[in-house]
């Protein structure tokens, strides 16, 4: 018998290893199926690459934190998170191609929308076409959501939730401020913000006496600022991205262009604005954004609270997150809440869960209006005072009173 077994050792060994390999393969296949893949079209190269770098950090910290805790709970099992990135080179037409590539070739389960309102609107048709549940991290313009697309959701509240509080704060402080100058980057979001501010200001009796746009990649604003100075407004409202804000603020100081109120969207919400614009340049500049690290929300998500998120982010990347980082983490958190609520990754069930969601997140309470845009929180308004950003609205998290430049 022993002799017989001895003779069969090579044969048994081969059988054992074949079986083992088959088991490992099966196990790996099972693992591969036990994950949820999210698609993220990002402007990794080109003019918007600074935003993409932040977006990627925001997504990654969510994915890592979720996976470290065993993944997303789907019914009675847990599924790991994986994010597929495709670069669309800061070109909106390519953003649509990138999103389609993620849906049709990479076969992602869910999609994060590309950066900003313009690219989100352009690619949103894909959400309806492929019934792909899409969550937009940075699209605030209501025009993105007004086409009845039931698969598109966004976590930014409408632009007016930023401009109306600003106008209220300023007019409450000094009712004699009656004129405004608006300078906007010729881009979807800055123009939408400028239009909204014009409406909000006009509603409170503030007259817009200067209204100009500047081209993307403008290197010099001195001629425009010379005209603005001649108009002598009470309130200067600039809307663009951080590089525009820093350059314009510097040139305003150089040419001694000032006003009792200077508001910039959205540069001052980034910590690097103070570094780049300098203490003098940043002082008293007001701004608003959808999130700020000084907020104090308690949450049911993987971070536990706003502070928990800020600490985790600082630990991983060594910097304080800004609203650009946070919104990209928040879309992950919201998707997770919806999937866990649905108990499934079936797109229709997750869509329905999102539509009726009421999640407590580190970004604030998130629920959506009928159009799919978040309507559940008040974005913070802030001002740079004594070299640091202080929240001046809403009252529950207010850190300081609003100051006029002449004070």
């Amino acid at each position: 018998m022993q002799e017989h077994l001895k003779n069969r050792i090579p044969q048994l060994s081969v059988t054992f290893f074949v079986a083992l390999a088959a088991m490992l393969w099966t196990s790996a296949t099972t693992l591969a199926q036990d994950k949820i893949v999210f698609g993220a079209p990002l402007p990794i190269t080109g003019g918007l690459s600074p935003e993409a770098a932040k977006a990627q950090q925001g997504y990654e910290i969510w994915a890592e934190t979720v996976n470290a805790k065993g993944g997303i709970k789907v019914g009675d099992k847990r599924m790991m998170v994986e994010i597929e990135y495709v670069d669309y080179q800061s070109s909106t037409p390519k953003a649509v191609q990138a999103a389609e590539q993620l849906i049709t070739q990479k076969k992602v389960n869910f999609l994060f929308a590309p950066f900003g309102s313009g690219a989100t609107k352009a690619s949103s048709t894909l959400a309806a076409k492929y019934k792909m549940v899409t969550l937009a991290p940075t699209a605030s313009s209501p025009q993105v959501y007004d086409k009845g697309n039931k698969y598109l959701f966004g976590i930014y509240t409408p632009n007016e939730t930023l401009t109306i509080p600003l106008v209220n704060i300023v007019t409450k402080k000094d009712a004699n401020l009656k004129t405004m100058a608006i300078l906007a980057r010729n881009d979807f979001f800055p123009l939408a913000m400028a239009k909204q501010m014009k409406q909000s200001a006009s509603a409170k009796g503030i007259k817009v006496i200067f209204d100009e746009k500047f081209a993307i990649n403008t290197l010099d604003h001195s001629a425009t600022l010379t005209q603005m100075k001649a108009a002598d407004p009470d309130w200067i409202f600039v809307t663009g991205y951080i590089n525009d804000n820093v350059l314009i603020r510097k040139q305003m100081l150089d040419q001694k262009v000032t006003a009792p109120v200077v508001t910039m969207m959205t540069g001052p919400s980034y910590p690097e604005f103070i570094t780049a614009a300098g203490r003098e340049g940043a002082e008293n500049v007001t701004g608003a954004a959808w999130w700020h690290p000084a907020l104090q929300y308690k949450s049911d998500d993987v971070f536990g609270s706003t502070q928990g998120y800020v600490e985790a982010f600082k630990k991983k990347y060594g910097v304080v997150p800004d609203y650009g980082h946070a919104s990209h983490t928040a879309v992950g958190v919201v998707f997770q809440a919806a999937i866990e609520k649905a108990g499934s990754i079936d797109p229709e069930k997750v869509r329905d869960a999102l539509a009726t969601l009421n999640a407590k997140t580190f970004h604030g309470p998130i629920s959506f209006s009928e159009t799919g845009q978040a309507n559940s929180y008040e974005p913070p308004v802030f001002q740079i005072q004594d070299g640091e950003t202080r929240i001046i609205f809403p009252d529950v998290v207010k850190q300081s009173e609003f100051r006029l430049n002449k004070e």
Partner: protein
Amino acid sequence: MIYVQVLANGIVLGCLYALIASGFSLVWSVLNIINLVHGSLIVLGAYLAWGLHNSFGVEPWWSLLIAIPPFFLLGYLLQRFVINRVMSAPVLVTLTLTFGLELIASNVMLYFFTADYRRLLLQPSLGSVEFGSVIIPADRLGATVLALLMTIALYVLLRQSRIGRAIVAVRVDSEAAKLMGVNVPNIYAVAFGIGTVMAGCAGTLMAVVFPFSPVVSTTFLGKAFVVCVLGGLGSVPGAIVGGLVLGITESFGSLFFGAEYAVTLAFSLLIVFLVVRPQGILGRWGFE
């Protein structure tokens, strides 16, 4: 009075554009290469000035001098060991090569410096210089004067020095220059080195004036291209004239048509020149 202020803004801007373009123009005319890595070299110069200022308190004016040896060496070696291999290849090959170098340079800078925008902050601020009601920021004025000096220095180098005449000779007719004993490959490398120095020095001054990040390289490159076409290829005075035309056009374009159309107007001018006077205002191929 607003027109005088706008004119002053345009002149200051134009001189900065001239410095951005002079090195680009030199390389294009001597080596017949459209150097797409030029914008990234300007940004690299800006990071050098920013790093020296933040780490060692070196003023950007000194960084301009410090930048000369390393940038010359970088440009010389880049041409000698990389670009020289495709000197006789069709223009598309050299264009592709410098495009590849631009991608590498831009991504290496993104890796090390991130995409955050930086600006060299002079403390205390130099303030502004006022001529009546015309206000010119002192840092821009300083950068403008240095930009003019650098451009004039390049002009003198090309006209008066032995190496400068050799560069001009190679530009006029490289075969004839070779027969006259000029070491043409060496001159190519020297010219590229000088072009790189001009880019690096421009960057040290740009750091004071504009916020920068690796992604702005294409904006600088676009300006250099327009200035070259307007002013005339291979002409240092042409770079100054082209820079001034672009700066003043953008300034007044912004005043009369709105800021959003200033760049459109400048590029419309470029198309007009390409059709009507393709050699540019002062361009005379092969002459200084």
